[in-house]
């Protein structure tokens, strides 16, 4: 069941990529793309298994859309923040590496969390070991794991927990 779901999602991803690449659409292109995507996904060694972590139910889909919006907002805020720091004549930075904890279990959830942290205000994921995530923070606001977890990951975890906990 889980492999079937992963294969279906892999098929949809590949087919969407094909449709975007051939963008003035016609039926022949779409059918050819569907056949090629199906053939690729059927190959047993094609790595789709992590896609099975994604949950497909109405609540998860609503949270996916909400997550996209939260992420875009964080991306824009992060850019304004970096812009402020770069253009400020005295460079207001106090960099350090802090440890935060994640409650996400699945590889896909952790991948999304690490990438989201990297693209949000002043933080870059340096290393992940088990449930510890080490984050480079351009202006360390709190050095203890609890406070840093609140500030960096809680916003995203709320949504990722539902999408692919």
């Amino acid at each position, binding site marked *: 069941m889980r492999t079937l779901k992963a294969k279906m999602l892999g098929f949809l991803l590949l087919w969407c990529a094909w449709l975007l690449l051939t*963008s003035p659409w016609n039926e022949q292109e779409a059918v050819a793309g569907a056949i090629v995507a199906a053939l690729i996904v059927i190959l047993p060694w094609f790595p789709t298994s992590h896609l099975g972590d994604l949950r497909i139910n109405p609540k998860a889909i609503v949270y996916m859309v909400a997550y996209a919006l939260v992420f875009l907002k964080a991306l824009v805020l992060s850019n304004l923040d970096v812009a402020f720091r770069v253009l400020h004549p005295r460079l207001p*930075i106090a960099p350090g590496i802090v440890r935060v904890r994640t409650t996400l279990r699945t590889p896909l959830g952790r991948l999304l969390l690490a990438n989201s942290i990297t*693209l949000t205000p002043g933080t*870059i994921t340096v290393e992940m070991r088990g449930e510890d995530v080490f984050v480079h923070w351009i202006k360390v606001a709190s050095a203890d794991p609890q406070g840093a977890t609140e500030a960096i990951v809680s916003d995203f975890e709320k949504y990722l927990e539902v999408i692919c906990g």
Partner: protein
Amino acid sequence: MTEIVGAFVSLVGALFFLLSAIGLLRMPDAFNRMQAGTKATTLGSILFLVGVGIMRPEYLGRLLLLVAFIVLTNPVSSNALARAAHGYRERLGARLEPDALAESDAAEGPRGEDHGD
């Protein structure tokens, strides 16, 4: 009209490119340069490419695919670079207060990784 809007969105994206380049020049060590070089170029390229897509709607499909590639690959490459840079933090002269990763390494003992030249 849509052409002007698209060109203007591209111009805003290009300004973010310029900002990230200024950040690369001004920041004091490699970690902070990464902060400027990753985030600003990601938003800059999203805006630039979407602006081109608004100007020329016939290119929009491919440009959306290109934006998806950039948003997925750019954080991955800077995570890999940050991990590599941490092995050289003393030679880079990086000021890190606190450095939880080095503390964790020290607590677990050396891992037998020797970062030679």
